[in-house]
Each structure stands twice: as C-alpha cells, then as structure tokens.
C-alpha cells in the first residue's frame, strides 16, 4: 500500500504544470545564487559545496511544500476527506504522500548539480563518490519521515500553506545547508542539533567535500525515525481533532 501510494502520488505531483515549472526554474536560481554567493565571498574553490547546499535547499523546499502543499492541495481537491475516511491508520494514509515528496525532492538535488555543471562548470568531484548518493538517499528518506511530523500540523490547520511558508527559510538557514552552522549565532546551535535536516545536510556535505559521512547520517536517520514515531502517534490525535474542528474540508 505504501509503495503503490507513493508511486501514484509521485505521478500526481510530477504531472502538475506548476510543479514542473517550479522544478525547472528553482534549481537554476538556487545554483546561481549559491555560486555567486561563494564567488563573492572569495571561496571559488568551494563551488561544489555551494551547489550541494543549493540542492539540499531544493530538497527541503520540496519536502516542506510537498507535505504542506500536497495536503493543502488534497484539501482543495476534496481528496483529503476521502483518504482520511479509509479504514487505515491516518499516519499510514499520509506516509506515501510525504515519501512521494521526498522522491520528487531527489530531482531538486540532481537538477541543481546538473545546472551547476552545465552553466558554471562546477566539477562534480565528490570526495566520497559512493557515499554521496547514499547520503542523499538517507537524507531524503529522513526528511520524508520528518515530513510526516509536519504533515500532522498541516492536516489540523486549514491554512497549511502559511505554516509551510513560515518554516522554509529558518530551517534551511539553521540547518547549515548553505551557510555553516558555526557561522550562525550560538543560540541556534541547540535548535540545529535536534533537526534531522542539520545532520542530513552535514552528511551530504561531508560526502561531497570530505569528512566522516556515516555518523552524521546515522544521527539524521535516528532523529528522523523519532520524528516518524512522533508523527505516527500525533497523527491519530490530529485526525480526531480535525474531525472535531471540521478542518478536513475547506468548509
């Protein structure tokens, strides 16, 4: 059920003209921003790191807006009520949706790297060429699980988009996707430490530019699994609350 659900949601997401346009343009913009940012900072030798960071931002945006947007879209198209009406655990119903957004997020990473190579000639010399795809896959799976925790909030809120918009920039900034965590104010440290995005980003960066990949990836997956468990438990409560407050439908 999870596999078929995720596959069909990927199909549904990837056929949206809006999503296709976003998928085509956003990676170019993000790769350009990252490259010029690092060039201006006098660190042209770290362009691969910039492209990977931009790719991670794309993955995060896809997962966040995928979880929030997909649920809001389902609310708009009247399918949220229909899927929540299924005699299944609500978390099981929504997991394929968040996994599908993670899978489409892979594209954001690949596209950003490809544009970086084509437009700016960034050499794709990964320090750990085998660990890199594993780290990206692990990071995306982790974010998909984190997405389930976010999705529980989106089910409850009729204006899920507002929450998604609010979370996009702070999370990628705090997680060190583009700017190193060490360059941020000290108080952001504890916040960053509990976010799976921080560890996922670290694992991917280490794989690209050299460093211990597996410890960071393991922490990312451990936090993500905790998010999955919390999301699973919360979803049952949230589904009940949504039926009390009547937020499954638009009106």
């Amino acid at each position, binding site marked *: *059920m999870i596999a*078929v659900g995720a596959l069909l949601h990927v199909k*549904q997401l990837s056929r*949206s003209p809006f999503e296709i346009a976003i998928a085509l343009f956003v990676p170019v913009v993000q790769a350009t921003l990252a490259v010029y940012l690092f060039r201006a900072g006098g660190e042209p030798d770290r362009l691969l790191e910039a492209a990977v960071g931009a790719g991670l931002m794309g993955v995060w945006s896809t997962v966040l807006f995928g979880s929030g947007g997909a649920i809001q879209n389902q609310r708009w198209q*009247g*399918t949220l009520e229909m899927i929540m*009406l299924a*005699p299944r655990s609500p978390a099981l119903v929504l997991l394929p949706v968040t996994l599908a957004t993670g899978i489409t997020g892979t594209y954001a990473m690949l596209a950003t790297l490809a544009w970086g190579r084509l437009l700016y000639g960034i050499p794709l010399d990964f320090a750990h060429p085998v660990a890199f795809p594993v780290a990206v896959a692990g990071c995306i799976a982790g974010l998909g699980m984190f997405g389930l925790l976010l999705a529980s909030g989106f089910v409850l809120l009729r204006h899920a988009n507002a929450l998604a918009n609010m979370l996009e920039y702070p999370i990628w900034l705090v997680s060190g996707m583009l700017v190193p965590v060490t360059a941020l104010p000290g108080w952001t440290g504890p916040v960053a430490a509990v976010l799976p995005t921080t560890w996922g980003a670290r694992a991917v960066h280490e794989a690209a530019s050299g460093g211990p990949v597996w410890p960071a990836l393991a922490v990312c997956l451990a936090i993500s699994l905790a998010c999955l468990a919390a999301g699973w438990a919360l979803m049952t409560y949230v589904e009940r609350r949504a039926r*009390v407050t009547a937020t499954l439908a638009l009106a």
Partner: protein
Amino acid sequence: MRTAGPTHRFPAMGEHAIEAVGLHRSYRSRTGWLRPQRREVHAVAGVDLAVGHGELFGLLGPNGAGKTTTIKLLNTLLVPTGGEARICGFDVVRQTREVRRRIGYVFGGDRGLYDRLSARDNLRYFAELYGVPGREQKRRIAELFELVRLTGRQDDRVEGYSRGMRQRLHIARGLLHRPRVLFLDEPSIGVDPVAARELRQTVADLAATGTTVLLTTHYMAEADELCGRIAVIAGGRIQALGTPAELRHHADGRRVLEVEAYGVTDGQVAAIRARPGVREVSLAVHGAAQVLGVQSDAGVDVQANVLRELGGVRLGRVTARQPTLEDAYVAIVNRAAEPAAVAGRMPA
C-alpha cells in the same frame, strides 16, 4: 467531546443499517481580534433517524439545512457534539474503523478525485487504501468500470472527464470495497439530464443488490423515483418523514397556481403571500423566465388576486394543478422556517 443531546439508547444493536438518536453538531466561529465576537451555529440540532438494511432512503432539504453535516456525522468525518449514531451496529465515534470498513461515501461536484491520474490509477489507489486484496483488485476494478459504464475510458486522465463521467467514477470509488452502506451526497448536482438518468439507474441497481443507500438531493423527482422513504430536513432537524405518498399529504387540501412571469419583485411576492387563502409562495428561475408557485387552500380561488398583484409584469402561461411532492416539500420547509421568521419579527 460530546456534551449536548439526550441520552437515548438504541433499541437493538444492528437492527438498522443506520441509526441516529438526538444527533447534534454545532460549529463555533470567532471574528475580529480586538473585540472578538463568538458565534455558535447549530448545523444539526437533534436528528433522529433509523434506516433499514437494503433501504434506499432520501434526505431532502434546502441549502444549509444540515444534510451534508448529517452525512458527515454518520460517515465519521465529523464528531457529533451531541447524541449518538451507529452504522450496522457500530458507534461512529468509538468504533470509527469498523464503521469505515462498512461504508462508502460519494459526493457531488468536480472534487474528490486525483485529476492528473487515470481513472484506473484512482481506483487502484483507493483499492489499496480500503484493503481490497491485490489478487481481487484487477477484477473488481474492471467490474466497476463496467457497472458505471466507463469501460474504454479507464486509462484516460480524470481531468479530461465530463462531470457525469466523474460522478460515475466517484460511485465506482465508493463501491470498491463492497460497502454495506453507501452515502450519496447530491450525486447528480450539475449533471446533465441524460447523465443524471444513468446515475439514477446505477443507484437503483445498487439498492436492488441489497446495499443500503442514504441519498441527499435537491431534485424532488429523483427522490420520488428512487427512495422508499424520505426525510425532509430543515434548520438542522427532521421536519417530516415518510414514503413519498405519505409526504404528499402535507399538501392535502391545497391547490397550486403556477404563473410564468418575467420580472416579479420581492415586494410582489410578499403582497401575494399576504392575500387571504394563500399558504405558500415560491419563485423559481428557469432560464430567462420566473415561475411563481402559489399554494392556496383548495376552496379558495386566488388566481384573480395573484394576477392583480402581478399587474405590469409580463406574464406567460398560467396553470392550476394538484399538489405534487415538491409542493409538499415546499410546504414542510416553509412551515419549518415560520417559527424562526416569527421570532425574528418579535421585539427584543
């Protein structure tokens, strides 16, 4: 948490396919930040209902009467604020999953399907969600495409479907897991007459196979043709319940005058309503024309008075006839609205 409503008990578990006692649902809303104003709307205010196994039951009412909210309370999409309901003997609040296994829900309009997927993919996904075994899915989906006459178009994307086709696909989706109770919420809304007739045929076939159907509709002819019993709901309460023939008695002792007109004003409708012998007045728009329906006591000829009030208005055909189920429905709904209107006129 359920707080309001009577504490009735059900006579016997599972005796009926659908049972509701004192069902109540209110919504609280808040407007304004500095001086917030709270409002409580009672969408369903004490509905009692018992629908037998295999029955095709109609729920009729004007917009905002509480039809959809009642259905959503019965199908577990909403939690009641009072009262109790059971489907096939299972409580809609405490035994949600048991209820969901036994019900199908179909609503009218364009929504509720994945537009960018094919009809087959839509059914495949919902078959997975409803736990239809993999080996049975293919056969069941083909069977349903046959039933709703979509064979040959099953691999087209839903976004290219007409409203009638979408509606039939909705029905197929609702039937995937062979539900014992099917909720149809205005399935023929916006559907052309030919497609609506096909839909009615599909619904009638379903009822013939023993599926319990609860149908809400605006179309009186549809309810009259399909339903064994009908409940008229207005103001969140059941105002009348019976077979179509029994409901027609609500218009006994009346006659109906129908006037085709162009440009009748609200003032003229009010003036006609105030005429002696007039019981109900309705004004419907059909294309460019208006159809004024005046129900009066059978012994009073109101035609002359009505035509006098309509002086200056261009008129078409004028006919007098016996009341229909629709006239009975108008009488019931207007009667339900009267206390509220009277209360509204009373000084504070």
